[in-house]
């Protein structure tokens, strides 16, 4: 069979170039904003996927690392004058260290107990942020100076563009690391843990080290994103940034696109985030977007339980198998 197929490299290269050109072509502030948020969602879901997809541990606690990254960056900016675009990469290492410690505790539990423990993490961080008023300014939240560089504030017309490129860079890095992990010994071990953790132990995989490391790495990119996010909005408060809905969104996006696949979380983000924005834009401040997300999740679970990408490749295999014999005999 001679079916014309576009090589993966062309798809990826094309998408990358399109994203590179996007803010230069699309001058609308609104669409530029949606694109930044979409790529950020792709970062969050891809990073979550390293733990939740490869390793099979469903964490609802990643909003804690998102928020911690946001707070550290905002504090370093306000008190020390560190520019968020630079500091976020380093401060996320601090968040990663915190995640390694928390993971070392939380990953002793499995299944739904792990989910509950990670939910508790988000609430603990929120309570701490609310009550450390001297540092975090409590419920009033933290405000940062308007974005700029070297004492010059970016004008409103171009303000989204620097954010577009830094989030794009972060997205590329996240996907690259996720890809390297998937092809490595480490990734093979993570998938083995997902399949049968006891068996993985029996054949010599130090499951605790693997899991904790996956937890830490997957917290890192979420924390970097949190730092950029706090600067993007120049305002954060505990209710807003330590929000369980942020965690849930990561899970939904990964499930939609294909949990455990490399590109599934990215694809999921590029469907969910613009759709969410459109719904909110069209129907206003109602809760209808939540109902639609619920319906989408239901549909995915019913008709393609593995997510879009795995289901598509399954359909392709089925089609080629069905056509295969007919063509070779004819």
């Amino acid at each position: 069979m001679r079916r014309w197929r576009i090589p993966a490299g062309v798809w990826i290269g094309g998408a990358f170039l399109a994203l590179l050109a996007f803010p230069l072509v699309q001058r609308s502030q609104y669409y530029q904003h949606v694109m930044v948020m979409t790529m950020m969602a792709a970062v969050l879901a891809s990073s979550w996927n390293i733990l939740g997809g490869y390793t099979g541990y469903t964490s609802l606690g990643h909003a804690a690392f998102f928020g911690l990254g946001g707070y550290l960056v905002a504090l370093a900016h306000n008190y020390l004058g560190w520019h968020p675009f630079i500091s976020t990469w380093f401060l996320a290492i601090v968040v990663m260290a915190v995640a390694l410690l928390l993971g070392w505790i939380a990953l002793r539990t499995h299944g739904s107990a792990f989910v509950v423990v990670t939910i508790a993490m988000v609430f603990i961080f929120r309570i701490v942020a609310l009550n450390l008023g001297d540092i975090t300014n409590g419920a009033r939240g933290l405000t940062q100076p308007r974005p700029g560089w070297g004492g010059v504030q970016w004008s409103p017309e171009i303000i989204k563009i620097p954010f577009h490129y830094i989030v794009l860079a972060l997205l590329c890095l996240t996907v690259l690391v996720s890809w390297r992990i998937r092809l490595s010994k480490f990734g093979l071990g993570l998938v083995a843990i997902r399949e049968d953790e006891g068996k993985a132990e029996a054949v010599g995989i130090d499951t605790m080290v693997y899991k904790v490391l996956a937890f830490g790495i997957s917290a890192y990119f979420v924390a970097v994103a949190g730092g950029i996010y706090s600067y993007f909005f120049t305002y954060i408060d505990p209710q807003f940034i330590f929000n369980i809905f942020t965690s849930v969104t990561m899970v939904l996006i990964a499930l939609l696109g294909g949990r455990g696949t490399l590109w599934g979380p990215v694809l999921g983000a590029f469907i969910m985030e613009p759709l969410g924005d459109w719904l909110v834009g069209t129907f206003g401040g109602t809760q209808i977007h939540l109902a639609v997300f619920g319906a989408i999740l239901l549909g995915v679970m019913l008709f393609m339980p593995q997510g879009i990408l795995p289901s598509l490749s399954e359909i392709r295999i089925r089609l080629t198998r069905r056509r295969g014999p007919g063509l070779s005999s004819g």
Partner: protein
Amino acid sequence: MTRMLQVENITKSFGGIRAVDGCSMAVERGSITGLIGPNGSGKTTLFNLITGFHQPDAGQIRFDDRPIHGLVPSRICHRGIGRTFQITRLFWKMTVLENMIVPVRQVGWRTLFSRGVKEHEEQRALELLALVGLVDYRDEEARKLSFGQQKLLEFAAVLMADPDLILLDEPAGGVNPVMIEKTMEFVEDLNRQGKTFLVVEHNMRLVMDLCQHVIVLDHGQKIGEGEPAVIQNDPIVLEAYLGSTNHAGA
């Protein structure tokens, strides 16, 4: 012969039940040792204690003269003990080849992020797969294999970690006679190459043919041991399996 594995006075209770009750036994280096006993006599629990899946309530386990009780299973595997499971456990959605590669021992942080399947590892995996007749299935998901093939794959994968002592939990359970023959040949070959085996098995013909030494458990205790021919006629062993001799004689 030297003692490779030594179990000393080991006890393990689950709730009120003493699954293993002050059991002591040893496995000689280079031997194929059988572990038999009626259902519920503690054989699998003993396996789980040796491989670190259970922690003993009391007693010691020594391997190559170093204590191994209290270690996590992966550490014990690194010390050189491999095992199969009574009910075959594989990474079902991973390919046959990947199932072979996962047990390859990794040393150091740098290898952790190196390529998942290396050429020399693949080479060795394919050699072993050829020995068990699974080389054509290398890219199939493990769950698609037949029951007997899955047992062979589990066995072959254990060898990828290059253990010195291999614990087989019912290698012939539910496997057809041809496959049993194949498994026995495989074990004997490896034994000649220097591997030591501890085998739990209910198929008596296999135990008698294969093992040089047999240990009998009942109610979590060792009730006898010796050469297969001797064990076969030991009245205490017969009693454990068939009930009291009075009844059997009547």
